[in-house]
């Protein structure tokens, strides 16, 4: 399991059987032989904004490898309150629980920023994993790195204020989608941050007044990343130090 860092095949050099290019970092990191083992099973799909891939405690049917966009892992309480526990972009995989043989997961998986990628049936992935040790290791490594992201979020949710958490979220998201324009509404940001819409609007308004972000027609544009970093809590720095390990810039 001792992969020190990801040695990536260049983005676009690999495709699925229908010729769709692969940009997912995990699929780009495994050796050719293993990629060929999984390739026939990769079904290309688009991730429309706000589309739910998995509802809490339902039986998962697919595991997802995003090429771009952003997927959110959300905890839903009994009374319907929600808060995001982690995010996944092209560096990761969604549906780890089923990949390791769990039959259900308490997390909602929802598309936060539209994108596309591949899906693979759970059973097929589990079968493939027996003959793809490097892929197994890459998933294991990703599970651990993602666990660290979630741990930091657990602390951040308790200890930091909405402005700090919003700034952190925007920065982490930008790292994953490689774009300064993030298609996201205040309602969804509130859901993600476990707060209400007015609080998000207030904080977003303040960041906008400082000319760090600009809010237009359901999208946030990051204007000054450096200043935004100074408004974020240290949790962003903690998450960022693993960007290299995840194959992110």
């Amino acid at each position, binding site marked *: *399991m*001792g*992969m*020190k860092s990801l040695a990536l095949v260049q983005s676009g050099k690999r495709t699925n059987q229908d010729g769709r290019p692969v940009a997912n970092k995990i699929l780009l990191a495994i050796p050719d032989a293993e990629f060929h083992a999984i390739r026939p099973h990769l079904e290309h799909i688009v991730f429309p904004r706000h589309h739910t891939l998995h509802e809490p405690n339902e039986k998962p049917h697919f595991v997802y490898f995003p090429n771009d966009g952003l997927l959110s*892992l959300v*905890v839903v*309480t*009994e009374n319907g*309150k*929600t*808060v995001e*526990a*982690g995010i996944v972009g092209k560096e990761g995989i969604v549906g*780890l*629980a089923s*990949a*390791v*043989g*769990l039959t259900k*997961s*308490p*997390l909602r998986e929802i598309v936060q920023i539209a994108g596309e990628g591949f899906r693979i049936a759970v059973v097929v992935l*589990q079968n493939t*994993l*027996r003959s793809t*040790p490097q892929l*197994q*290791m890459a*998933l*294991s*490594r990703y*599970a*651990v*790195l*993602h*666990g*660290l992201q*979630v*741990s*930091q*979020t*657990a*602390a951040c*949710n*308790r*200890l930091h204020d909405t402005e700090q958490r919003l700034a952190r979220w925007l920065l982490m998201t930008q790292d994953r989608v490689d774009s300064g324009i993030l298609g996201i509404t205040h309602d969804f940001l509130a859901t993600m941050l*476990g707060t209400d819409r007015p609080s998000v609007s207030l904080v977003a308004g303040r960041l906008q007044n400082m000319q760090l972000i600009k809010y237009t027609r359901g999208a946030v544009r990051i204007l000054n990343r450096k200043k935004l970093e100074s408004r974020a*809590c*240290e949790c962003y720095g*903690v998450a960022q130090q693993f960007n290299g*390990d995840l194959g992110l810039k």
Partner: protein
Amino acid sequence: MRRSDGQAGQIGRTSASGYRVRNRLLLSIPDTEFLVVRPHLEFLRLPHRCILHEQNEKLRFAYFLNSGLISLMIETREGKTVEVGTVGNEGIVGMQSAVGLTRSPLREVVQIAGDGFNIKPPLLQNALLSTPFLRSILNRYSVLQGLQIAQTAACNRLHNVEQRFARWLLMFQARSDSDSLVITHDFLAAMLGTDRPSISLAARNFQRRQVIEYKRGAVKILSRRKLEKLACECHAVIQQLSAESDLKGATK
């Protein structure tokens, strides 16, 4: 990654120096795999409050607990702390090193004294190359732990001090096999990511409702049933995930 029948020979499993193995992951792997890991298991006692890993320091060992409880903590620059997860004999501490990471932002601290084994990361990594069953149950464990931490992330945001205090006491009692828990308000504040007055207030409320009794720095649980009602749903969710990580056939 599917579970197979790998429980043979778990009775009387010991380390090379003769210490009995009670860690459930180590008890659930097949004999052939246990023999690969066995020479590298170093027995150690885990005294209360002992720090196994300090935030951002180099990861020197991974740990398989036989007994006791480890808290995974995060401390901010200004010294605020909060617990994000716990590990007992169902799991491994320091899985980061098994996948080749050299550092981790988590502090690992002994919450309930116990004992277990440590193993050096390169030796564990090497062993994992020829132990597919261990590899898959470690993966399964990391994912389950991630789900528990995800629940904590939500809980820390959405639930109040009383709910979280109740949840923590239930978890702690289940792990410590005792009704009387020696814990100070300061310490509880550090675990729950709040301040001492908030904990004192919650403790007084619980005491008035005869849920707990606070005497000479020890909390005694008077009614576990009442405590369960006061705790948020996260207690049940996390408990269920812990039960899942208990592998079939592994003994206590």
